[in-house]
Every structure is written in C-alpha cells, then in structure tokens.
C-alpha cells in the first residue's frame, strides 16, 4: 500500500477509536487503556533504541571483530534468537535475582525485548552490510581510506537503505512482543485489557478498542519507516530502479 493509503487507514483507525471512546459502553475503559497504551509505547521506544544499538554492535563484531568478541556476538545472537522472548523476560526478572542481580520490571522488559529483537536485527544488519558490492570496498582501498572510515562513510550508509524495510517488520514484531511484559507484572495495554475484562466481562468493547490501538501504533511505525526509506534512498534507490 502507498503512503497515502497507509495515512488514510491510520486516520480512519484513529477516528474510529475517537468515536468509540465517546460511546457509553466504551467510555469507562478509556483511562485505563490509555495508561496501558502509554506504557506500551514507552517500552516499545526504549526497546527499539536498544535493539538497533545491540544489532549494530553484534553485526559489526560478528563481521569484523577479533575472535573472542566475534564469538561473544555469535553467542548472543544464537541465544536470543533460539529461545523465546517470554523465557528471556522470566530469566531477567525472576532468575537473575537469584544470582544477586535485581532489575526493575520496566528495565527487565526493555532489556529483554530490546536484546531479543536486536538478535534478529543483527542478522538484518549483517546481511545488508555483506550485500554492499565488493567494488565499493575496493574503491575505498584505492582511495586509501581506513577500514573504519570505509565502513562509516561508504558501506554503512548504503547498507542502511537496504535495512529499513526489514527493520520496519522488526519494530512491529517488537511492538507485539511487548504484550508479554504483563507476565513480569507490568501494566501495558494488553495487561490492562485483561484486567478490565476479568472484572467487567465487556470483552467485545475492550478488545475492539485494544485491537484498534495496536493497529494505530503499528501503522505509525510503518509510515515512519516508509518516510525514512524514502529519504535514505536518495541516489541509491534510483540506481536500483535504473
């Protein structure tokens, strides 16, 4: 779908939420769900920053790091991709205290989800870096650039454009994963919904609103990534189209 279509869908979603919020049956849930949504947004944003950072570091170490750091990166990627996010959250929140490390639930949530998505992201980053044609590296050697200069100025900017669409998917995956944080006592959107559902049994009203709110959030992510893609694509995407 084009950007315009996505924007239209987002507007429609927000309008529907707005309309429903005004109805008698729905109004009582709005404050609680809004609080939950704020928590979800907060965790999503913080975990996304951590995920991108972890992915970049892990990918660069796996590709260019000295042996011990390379192994560390590979181990991180495999552990966090190979086990479920829920198990990782439980470890961070319930198991680590046994070893004397106690994390706030919010901190554990951000670290757990950030590192989980970061492990997938590392493969995205690595794939995009190795997909940059070899001739680009060779040109940097011919211009006597250092490897670090080449990576920072030539290779990563080109890889960046190729990474944006898969990162869009990962961020949406991240958003959905945040629903797990209710398992470690955090009051996110999904948690508030369940809580209110148990006391009021208004399943239709509550989960209609919740569905629409998640949809609005993921549409915001998709649109933001499309805009980023458009900007980063200057020159490069035109080259691909040609």
């Amino acid at each position: 779908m084009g950007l315009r279509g996505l924007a239209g869908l987002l507007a429609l979603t927000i309008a529907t939420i707005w309309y429903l919020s005004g109805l008698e049956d729905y109004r009582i849930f709005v404050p609680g769900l809004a609080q939950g949504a704020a928590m979800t947004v907060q965790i999503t944003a913080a975990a996304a920053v951590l995920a991108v950072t972890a992915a970049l570091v892990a990918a660069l170490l796996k590709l260019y790091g000295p042996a011990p750091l390379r192994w560390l990166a590979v181990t991180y990627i495999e552990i966090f991709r190979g086990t479920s996010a829920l198990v990782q959250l439980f470890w961070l929140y319930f198991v680590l205290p046994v070893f004397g490390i106690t994390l706030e639930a919010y901190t554990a949530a951000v670290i757990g989800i950030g590192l989980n998505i970061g492990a997938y992201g590392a493969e995205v980053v690595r794939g995009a870096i190795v997909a940059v044609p070899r001739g680009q590296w060779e040109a940097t050697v011919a211009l006597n650039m250092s490897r670090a200069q080449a990576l920072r100025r030539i290779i990563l900017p080109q890889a960046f454009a190729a990474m944006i669409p898969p990162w869009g998917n990962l961020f949406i995956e991240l958003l959905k994963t945040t629903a797990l944080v209710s398992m470690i006592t955090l009051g996110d959107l999904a948690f508030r919904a369940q809580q209110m559902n148990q006391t009021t049994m208004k399943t239709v009203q509550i989960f209609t609103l919740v569905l629409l709110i998640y949809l609005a959030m993921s549409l915001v992510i998709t649109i933001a990534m499309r805009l980023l893609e458009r900007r980063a694509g200057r020159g490069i995407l035109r080259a691909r189209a040609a």
Partner: protein
Amino acid sequence: MTEPMVSFENVTKRYGTLTVLDNLNLTIGRGEKVAIIGPSGSGKTTVLRMLMTLETIDGGVIRVEGEPLTHMERGGKLVPADQAHIRKVRAKIGMVFQSFNLFPHMTALQNCIEAPMKVLGLSREKAEARAMDLLDMVGMANRRDYYPSQLSGGQQQRVAIARALAMRPKVMLFDEVTSALDPELVGEVLQVIRKLGAEHDLTMLMVTHQMGFAKEFADRVCFFHSGRICEEGEPQAFFTNPQNERSRQFLRAVLEAG
C-alpha cells in the same frame, strides 16, 4: 639511473593451486605510460590489483619508489608490513575500475571530496576547489551535484578518474576502464586519459583492449600470457613487428575481431 617508480621483483601470485603470476619482474620508470595487453585470464588485472593492495602476494616483493609495499625492512629482513606502512606507500597509487565503483549515495562532487577530506585532512573549501578543478578537467563540472545513477557510464567513469586524481597519486592504474561502456562513450573517456598522459610526471599503468589507443598512447607495451610477460617493447615495434609467436597470434585474433 634514477630509481624506478614501481618494481615487481619475482612476484608470484597463486589462487589455490593455480599460479596466476609466475615470478613476475617488471620495472616502471617515473612518468612512464605502460600498456598491459594480453588474452583474458593472463593475469593483467591481478598485476594492478596487487599493486593497489587489493590482492596479497605469495612471493617476491613490490616496491614503490624503492619502498616495499606490503613488506617492511626490519633488521635487514623483509617482514609483512603493518596497516600504517601499507597506507603510507599506498597513498602514491590510485586506481580506476572497469565498473567505476562510484559511491552511489554521494554526488559527483561528494565522491571527489570524501577521501581528500577524510584521508588527507583537507578542509572542505580546499577539497572542493581541488575537486572542481578535476571535474572541470574531465568535463564534468556542470554535473557536480548529480548522483552516479543520473550519469551515463562514460560520465561516471570520468568522475571516477577525477576522484582518483583528487588524492594526487603518483601512479594511476586503469583496468579496462572503457570495457563496460557503450561504444559511443569510449572516446570521451580515452580523451580524458590522453589529457592526463600529457602530464609528464604521472606514471600510468593501463590494462586495455584498445590496441589503437595503446599504440598511440603508451611508451611501452607488455604482452601477458599465462601469468608471464611474453614480450615487451616500444609500441611501434611491438605492433608492427611482434617477435613472439603468441603475440602474433593474439594481435591477429584482435584484428580479426575488429
């Protein structure tokens, strides 16, 4: 005799069990223009890539103005060089590729100022002034703000030449720089190389299939066959009266192909 600009001394290159260059000895004088010709797979590209440090060597030593390129002298012995040494010597070499390899996310001008600013430490003003002189020289000044994808192959290659020159190399390597171009664009690139050739202190090493150009432009022709120099000499003599049977065969085949 003055010191040669570049010398290959018993240089050997292998890929696995395949010996691509076998004890190559080649000396290139300061300002000399050398054309390297020969059949496909004879090792021509490998010679340039070794000099650009894009390939390692398996034996022998390459010197640039007497200084070993990928080795350092230590206690009278040659040991593998560190990155700092390689970069110091490599600064004297520039290369233009068959496939241009311009940076697609940068405009023509940005392509030409990136390394001068980041590697040589030039200020933006200095780097831009230098780049504009060179873009002007290759006839691309009016395309300074174009991205590579907006330029024709010939234009891209001319920008690539300007980009390499902006580093002020003493030796320029050209690897079949017109082979990827549509026929009508070959001339504009050769014209730029001719202009460069008029600068007497620039040493040029050029792999080419343009025999006419090699004959008119080069001071010397080296004919490669199976990783060895089969014949070398002054172009007039080489093209009109090749001595080696393989050279004769090769020239005949090239002539027939038109």
